[in-house]
């Protein structure tokens, strides 16, 4: 009898908990970006709280795993250092992003215009892609020196392949009906490109740009690892040698912040450029 009472009490306690969560989530709008953001925020906060609890309860030393509070402390302390080192990394990543994507799209266009060039060089391009970027970085350092150039080159190289592959796919993934129409209208190759292929490829190119905008930050950091005295990659290595784990975490957050900002900018651009529904055939 007593047992039963305890059981029932326990059940009602969990029920209250469930009801509480329900009540909180019911306060949020049913759908839309606000709900996505808030629900994501709640999920993320729960992980941060759990992380803080684990660190505090088990007394994990902060040079092994810093608690969220340690990381926030490090960000406040090293704010100026992180910001000043973010500038070269952003510069390298941005230049690499521009160069890598520009070259990739130019090569993709040459493939579309000349089938023979595509047959000869596309397989080679895919082969080069299989070489790990970290393995190419030292070569680039020898060739390009200690300045900004090897970092930009790594970032550009890492952007190049996803955009090349997607742009080639985009330029060729044109509805055959539209090509037939352009043939009946006696359109030239350039006209087909300008009025059909370019627009057809844009959704593909933008998915590639969203990948490469985060990858170019990685490329710049890898470039900095090989040899640099400034930048996010340099601070990462330096923090590791100093056993300053909270600063290491703060630097990681900075790097991720740069990538998220880039992703957001490209996403906004995509919304502005692609005003039609790419999935729809009309």
């Amino acid at each position, binding site marked *: 009898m007593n047992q039963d009472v305890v059981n029932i009490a326990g059940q009602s306690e969990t029920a209250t908990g469930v009801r509480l969560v329900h009540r909180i989530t019911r306060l949020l709008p049913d759908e839309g970006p606000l709900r996505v953001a808030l629900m994501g925020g709640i999920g993320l906060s729960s992980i941060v709280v759990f992380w803080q609890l684990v660190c505090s309860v088990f007394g994990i030393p902060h040079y092994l795993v810093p608690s969220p509070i340690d990381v926030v402390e490090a960000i406040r302390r090293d704010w100026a250092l992180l910001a000043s080192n973010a500038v070269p990394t952003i510069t390298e990543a941005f230049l690499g992003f521009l160069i890598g994507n520009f070259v990739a799209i130019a090569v993709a266009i040459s493939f579309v215009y000349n089938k023979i060039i595509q047959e000869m060089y596309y397989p080679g391009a895919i082969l080069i892609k299989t070489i790990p970027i970290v393995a190419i970085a030292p070569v680039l350092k020898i060739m390009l020196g200690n300045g900004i150039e090897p970092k930009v080159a790594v970032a550009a190289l890492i952007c190049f392949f996803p955009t090349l592959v997607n742009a080639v796919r985009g330029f060729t993934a044109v509805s055959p009906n539209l090509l037939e129409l352009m043939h009946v209208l006696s359109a030239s190759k350039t*006209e087909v490109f300008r009025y059909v292929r370019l627009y057809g490829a844009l959704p593909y190119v933008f998915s590639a740009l969203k990948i490469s905008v985060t990858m170019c930050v990685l490329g710049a950091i890898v470039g900095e690892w090989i040899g640099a005295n400034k930048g996010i990659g340099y601070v990462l290595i330096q923090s590791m040698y100093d056993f300053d784990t909270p600063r290491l975490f703060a630097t990681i957050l900075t790097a991720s912040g740069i990538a998220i900002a880039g992703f957001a900018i490209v996403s906004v651009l995509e919304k502005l450029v*692609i005003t*039609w529904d790419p999935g729809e055939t*009309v």
Partner: protein
Amino acid sequence: MNRVVQPKPEYWAEAGSAASAIQLAGINVTFGSGNKKVEAIANIDLNVSQGEFVSLIGHSGCGKSTLLRVIADIIKPTRGSALIYGESPDMARRARTFSMVFQQSVLMPWSTVLENVRLPFKVGSRNLQSSSQAMDAVEALRLVELDGFATAKPAELSGGMRQRVAIARALVTKPRILLMDEPFGALDELVRDTLNVELLKIWRKAGTTIVFVTHSLHEAVFLSQRVVVMSRRPSHIEGIMEVDLPSERTLDLKDDPRIGAQVAQLRSMLDAG
């Protein structure tokens, strides 16, 4: 059988000749080679007069679209000759003698309705734009009663409206020949009936020659002056039926018993093939 008396064409069909618009002689189309060789069309002769409305019907895969594509210079015939006003299909295509409407509207989803209709002026022979031969894009939209939708994107339109835009795009160059490949095949019956009547109105007003591929016997009879029945692969012409209907064809005529009788006649011709 009564021939439809053409009112004086308003534009673009040159008056004064009962000339052949299209002459096909001994057309043969073979796809592939070796063991995979498929003979799609075997030895087709067909003449289409200027201003005529001719439908091609047949079982699916019988090569009626292939024949239309030979006229449109999309497919080169393996043997035989195709002449469009005495010119090769290639020359006729460059001269914009014909326009084509497909089963899908094939609009550019990123452009407005007006920009889509203007496409024929932007590509190919640009000098057409200034010539008196062409009409204004807005005028073409008015012809299909879509002038209020010039700035809309194709995605905002219904399937029937999109197909009307495609027709406006085909008419804007004032072609002497309109080639239509199952243009209303993807639309529901009510929309199809409305567009049938509108197409006849445009045809009568424009005096253009129309070659119309369809798998609907009813549609073929309702629209055409002549219906060309094609046999199964390898396709040849099984027979040609002159349609016996008044020249003024309105929606009421859709349920006329004369249409039913002629549909039955077409069906027996098809079954024979």
